[in-house]
């Protein structure tokens, strides 16, 4: 029925089957939308956040999706700036995933703020000293860049491409994509870093506080670094999942291997830096504030397992990805990708939720929190939205340049 829209030379499942799948996910999406509307109309009392937990699940989700969406800027950087041309075969998907992640982040932010109608004050009354201002500016700009990078893909849809204007526009945009990608990488470097800075500058919160370079705490660099390392892993993981679901090979192994190898080395160096940072923080920064790090992990819930899990998953992923054998073994490769994703998500969790949980005043108590269903629903909402957007894009747009070649249709 919709065959006119489907790219030439590739096979897609029948429309009814597709529609059923989409509706199932759509139901979840609607649940999320309902929760979102509740939050907007009734206010943030719909959440389980409180005055001790001003930042909670949503901010974690924000930080996590932005880190995972980091595959877009880093792959773009590698392709357009460094010149790893093979990556053109996965850049579309990286951009798409990035687009999903960043649009989700913006949506979550729009739900998270107490006065959404005043959200634009962050631009209008910008306080340039705030890490969050930097995040907001770079995030919105980079989202613009991602849109610019995603648009040509839409224009390449068989029907849209027939319109000469779009065809030309798409062509022109491709011509100067390197400029956009470079700008995007520049913006991403800052906002990924600023997100790290968000926690690192909290000098009133010894668990989060880090020393650093000039105005930038070490978390600034660690966040950029980890996003550059784990973002591509997420891109690869989603690619592998897409291949598993569509039962097709979509990207050639050499492309995957190249990106994985680079991500692996990024992750490896990140882990070295992260461990160094942790040691310095534990041995120097924290005692200066009068704490022993043991106190930060003294809760029944927040204990050393969190630190162990974060460092462990990162180390496992790094070691697998830097070794050829590790990358080439299907099982260990997927384990590595999952570990990398968990590693970065744990890191973002700890840097948001554990920061809030640790008591600072000597007579204060641990603050634990569990999200309300509205928070969970609105956090799942972007996942559902992502699945739908990716499915539609995959179905109608030529996302994978090598798909045709790898799956010749009889």
């Amino acid at each position, binding site marked *: 029925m919709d065959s006119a829209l489907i790219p030439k030379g590739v096979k897609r499942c029948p429309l009814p089957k597709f529609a059923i799948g989409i509706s199932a996910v759509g139901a979840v999406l609607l649940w999320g939308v309902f929760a979102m509307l509740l939050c907007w109309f009734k206010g943030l009392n719909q959440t389980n956040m409180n005055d001790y937990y001003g930042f909670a699940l949503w901010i974690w989700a924000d930080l996590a999706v932005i880190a995972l969406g980091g595959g877009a800027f880093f792959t773009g950087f590698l392709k357009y700036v460094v010149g790893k041309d093979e990556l053109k075969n996965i850049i579309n998907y990286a951009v798409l995933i990035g687009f999903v992640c960043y649009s989700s982040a913006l949506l979550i932010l729009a739900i998270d703020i107490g006065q959404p109608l005043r959200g634009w004050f962050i631009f*209008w009354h910008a306080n*340039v000293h705030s890490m969050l201002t930097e995040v907001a500016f770079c995030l919105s700009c980079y989202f613009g860049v991602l849109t*610019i990078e995603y648009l040509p893909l839409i224009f390449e849809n068989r029907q849209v491409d027939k319109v*000469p*204007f*779009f065809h*030309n526009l*798409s062509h022109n945009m491709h011509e100067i994509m390197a400029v956009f990608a470079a700008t995007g990488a520049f913006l991403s470097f800052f906002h990924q870093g600023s997100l790290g800075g968000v926690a690192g500058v909290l000098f009133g919160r010894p668990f989060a506080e880090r020393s650093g370079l000039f105005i930038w705490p070490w978390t600034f660099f660690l966040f950029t670094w980890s996003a550059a390392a784990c973002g591509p892993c997420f891109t690869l993981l989603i690619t592998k999942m897409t291949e598993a679901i569509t039962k097709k090979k979509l990207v050639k192994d050499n492309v995957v291997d190249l990106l994985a190898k680079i991500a692996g080395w990024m992750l490896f160096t990140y882990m070295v830096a992260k461990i160094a940072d942790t040691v310095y923080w534990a041995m120097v920064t924290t005692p200066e504030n009068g704490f022993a790090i043991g106190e930060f992990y003294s809760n029944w819930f927040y204990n050393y397992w969190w630190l162990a899990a974060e460092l462990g998953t990162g180390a496992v992923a790094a070691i697998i990805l830097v070794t050829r054998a590790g990358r080439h073994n299907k099982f260990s490769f997927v384990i590595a990708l999952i570990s990398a994703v968990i590693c970065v998500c744990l890191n973002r969790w700890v840097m948001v939720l554990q920061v809030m949980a640790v008591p600072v005043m000597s007579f204060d108590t641990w603050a634990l929190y569990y999200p309300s269903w509205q928070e969970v629903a609105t956090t799942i909402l972007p996942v559902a939205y992502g699945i739908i957007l990716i499915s539609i894009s995959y179905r109608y747009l030529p996302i994978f340049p090598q798909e045709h070649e790898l799956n010749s249709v009889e």
Partner: protein
Amino acid sequence: MFPIISFEWVWDMSHIVFMGGLWYALSVIGMGMTWCIIKAVVDTCQGNAAGHHH
């Protein structure tokens, strides 16, 4: 956000660096897109179908 009309604006280094970076990035993106669109309009009007870019 804007010099002069925004009353939070102060002429100090951090504002100039931050907003400078921001406006620089915005200009690059803006000018890039403007170029693409104008060229696309011109190309379309001239009837030149651009070649396939792959």
